[in-house]
């Protein structure tokens, strides 16, 4: 009787990783799905802000959904604290279009996975990577770099493209049958969708080119601004705050974050401690947070920006409330109407 083969899979819950897990599961391999939480997940942002079209139906964690559908246990690994300093700020293989260190990210996650594999006695690791699908991290040289640098080498299997790649140890040793793996490559998802249909996998997120904030230029700009003004002493909360709102830099250490809707205002409420808060009582208005030590002029500017994004924007003056710790007050200001001024402050 064959020894029960056990594998770890990186499972984001997207179509490719779900399929890879299903393909390996179909070969009678016991699978544990690992889902890494970096703090930069776009889906987390959507979930935090809620489903605006249907507030009663919250966004789900797709990895958990995939695990439930496939009856594969999912373990979420929290790497937020290490990820920023070790991966985002010092990528050996550089950035993609934004501040996305995709190759280093894969290496880091797979190093962690290798440690778990060795610690718990799993035989190999697989991912849903598809040769040629992503311009930075899924070309052949980076796929090889990732396998090498993670320390997994030939213990790393990519089931969807395996037949286009050199034979891995799981195939060589007969843990999985290479003939039942696939030769998918390129950016089209057509073959994956056909395969999903064959496996009766019907509920998966639309392929959307990734689920990370870091490639997004707007997010990357805010992160660069943060690092330039605050250095690398960053908390996960700081990173979370970059995900929402309009951001304005008033001075070296003073930044203003303005909520764009009720969902963002509610989210921002969790970050009031240690920051000044600004709002308008007489009109529907954003919640604005001020970071740093604002001068009287900074506070007035922040109030004018808040008035600008309130429903009182067309009024000649608007009374704006502020609170900072035990101190609070009201300023009557002219809403900021000068787009050019706003653009010079906008991050």
């Amino acid at each position: 009787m064959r020894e029960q083969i056990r594998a770890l899979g990186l499972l984001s819950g997207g179509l490719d990783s779900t399929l890879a897990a299903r393909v390996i599961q179909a070969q009678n391999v016991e699978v544990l799905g690992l889902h890494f939480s970096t703090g930069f997940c776009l889906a987390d942002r959507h979930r935090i802000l809620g489903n605006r079209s249907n507030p009663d139906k919250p966004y789900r964690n797709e990895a958990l959904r995939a695990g439930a559908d496939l009856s594969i246990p999912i373990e979420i690994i929290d790497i937020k604290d290490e990820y920023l300093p070790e991966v985002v700020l010092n990528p050996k293989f550089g950035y993609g279009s934004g501040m996305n260190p995709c190759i280093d990210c894969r290496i880091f996650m797979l190093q962690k996975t290798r440690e778990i594999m060795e610690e718990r006695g799993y035989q190999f690791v697989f991912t849903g990577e598809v040769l040629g699908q992503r311009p930075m991290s899924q070309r052949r040289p980076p796929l090889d770099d990732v396998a090498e640098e993670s320390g997994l080498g030939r213990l790393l299997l990519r089931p969807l493209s395996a037949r286009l790649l050199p034979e891995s140890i799981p195939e060589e040793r007969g843990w999985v049958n290479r003939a039942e793996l696939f030769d998918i490559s390129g950016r089209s998802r057509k073959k994956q969708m056909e395969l999903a249909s064959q496996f009766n996998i019907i509920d998966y997120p639309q392929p959307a080119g990734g689920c990370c904030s870091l490639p997004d230029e707007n997010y990357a700009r805010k992160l660069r601004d943060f690092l330039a003004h605050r250095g690398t002493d960053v908390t996960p909360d700081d990173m979370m705050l970059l995900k929402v709102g309009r951001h304005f830099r008033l001075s070296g250490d003073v930044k203003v974050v303005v909520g764009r809707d009720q969902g963002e205002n509610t989210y921002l409420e969790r970050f009031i401690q240690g920051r000044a808060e600004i709002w308008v009582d007489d009109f529907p208005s954003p919640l604005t947070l001020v970071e740093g030590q604002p001068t009287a002029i900074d506070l007035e500017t922040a109030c004018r920006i808040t008035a600008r994004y309130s429903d009182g924007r067309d009024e000649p003056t608007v009374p704006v409330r502020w609170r900072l710790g035990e101190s609070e007050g009201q300023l009557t200001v002219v809403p900021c109407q000068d787009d050019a001024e706003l653009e010079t402050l906008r991050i």
Partner: protein
Amino acid sequence: MSSQARSARRHRNDQELRRYVHGTLARDALERLVPDILIDALGTFCPEPVIRTQDRMADAGPGEIAMLLADDVGVEIDIPAWCLSTGNEYLGLLKSESSYKVFVRRASFERP
């Protein structure tokens, strides 16, 4: 598959999701439950409530019951899904105006 067919299948899957979102205990039974483990995830966002649950449940004995306190709406879906994937039993949740009490019973087998 046409988008219409896919939409129909997705709808069926939503029905399936609702099925497993229902816990195995009724509200009055949940209200009487005395949990063995209390997991406080108030003020945290997804996936932190799930992470705290999985970490505490890893040390729980078979049959032990944990109560997760959370105010992230995502627990309504994610904890049942986590239970389904890991084999733990989702007992149900009590929802108040601003928070949730979610009850989970540790499976009687070891996690892989």
